[in-house]
């Protein structure tokens, strides 16, 4: 970038936007140009929201999901089933499960999965915090909802090993052939899993 470019507010905004995931140079410039043409109130609200997301969002002190301070709305909701905790790797996974509308218990966000080569061991995840939530006997079941890949599976196995002695029922979300998919196109590992996780009809 030349000195002139760095001074140019449009170039500066585009350069900052390219640091976001999924935004290439072309998209960044298109977004920047659309902001130039946009309504002033909208641009002010957007700038405020961007600053606010960083200033106001922290982690829930109970489940470690993103939240605006103290305990999140789900942890505070007395209508939810506080006897069951669904463990997920990251906030996006909690959002995906919540969208189904089929789950009414609490969550716990680990902030990662076990990854030996990435240097992520049990101490790098919010595991101690999960154990603390299981002291006392109000929680009867933990559902481990990590992704059905090697790292997600190993994390589930690790948690099961840790939690079973505490007298909590530990389960794992089912996985296998994609709904709407065709069997002949499923890969070997997916089919193996689907067979292993079969259930009675």
């Amino acid at each position, binding site marked *: 970038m030349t000195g002139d470019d760095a001074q140019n507010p449009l170039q500066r905004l585009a350069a900052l936007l390219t640091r976001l*995931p*999924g935004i290439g140079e072309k998209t960044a410039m298109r977004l920047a140009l659309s902001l130039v043409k946009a309504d002033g109130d909208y641009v002010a609200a957007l700038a405020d929201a961007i600053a606010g997301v960083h200033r106001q969002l922290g982690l829930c002190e109970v489940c470690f999901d993103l939240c605006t301070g103290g305990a999140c709305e789900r942890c505070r909701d007395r209508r939810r089933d506080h006897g069951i905790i669904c463990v997920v790797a990251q906030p996006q996974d909690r959002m995906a499960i919540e969208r189904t509308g089929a789950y009414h218990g609490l969550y716990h966000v680990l902030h990662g999965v*076990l990854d*030996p*080569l*990435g*240097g992520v*061991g*049990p*101490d790098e995840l919010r595991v101690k915090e999960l154990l603390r939530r299981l002291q006392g006997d109000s929680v009867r079941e933990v559902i481990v909802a990590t992704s059905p*890949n*090697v*790292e*997600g*599976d*190993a994390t*589930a*196995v*690790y948690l099961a*090993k*840790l939690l079973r002695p505490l007298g909590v029922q530990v389960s794992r979300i089912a996985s296998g052939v*994609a709904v709407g998919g065709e069997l002949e*196109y*499923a*890969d*070997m*590992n*997916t089919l*193996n*899993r689907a067979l*292993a996780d079969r259930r009675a009809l």
Partner: protein
Amino acid sequence: MQSQSTPAVILRTRPLGEADLIAIVLTPEQGKLETAAARARNSKKRFAGGLSPGMRGVAAIARGRGALLRLESFDATAAHAPVGADLTRFAYVAYLCELTDELVLARHPDPELFAALCLALEQVIGGAPQALQLRQYELALLRCLGLSPALTSCCVCGSEVGSEDSAAFDGPRGGVLCLEHERGAPRLPAAALAAIQHLEAGGDPAALASAPAGVRRAVRDAIQSIVRSHLRRPLHAQAFFAALPRDAGAEGV
């Protein structure tokens, strides 16, 4: 451009942007390659089982722009799901991959090394994971790199080393030592030296499963003293294994 199909083992991946991955793969005829796998994180067709360290399969690799290689697809040819089902196996597979990635130079093809890695992965993933399988692979890797320890004659002068109840063994210096050159060298029990010779000769690691824990530990420490002297940094997989709750019988990597 036409892509080439080759047997391959995934050694390591790292994210590249939002949906792509850099995958380091080991192949028999082209050695260790760094490849870019476009949309690897969401293509269910080209990377059906995902890309995970230790996966064995057939890779289609094409030359991209400049020197960059493109991983067009990867089809697993051996079951990989057992890796996530057992923490010891999970850590062992990570160790095999990380050790290989650290010690093998890019583009130095060695079919023998590729076969040794595939054998070790098959033993660890296909059966019950045992630390002695890792030891045998470490010896094979050292052999392929021209770093095999001397096991029968002094690594300094080449004279025959007598069979007593223990031998002087200094990994970083090159193996066993004769009386004249052994000063200050640690002692290795004869049973441990015999076990190393058994593994080095391609003997079944399972045949040593009933060896006393002290002997297995001595085997590990002797071989790892050599391996460590060639590593630039401690391996993540070893720190990971140390942080796991200990399974009965599981030995350190």
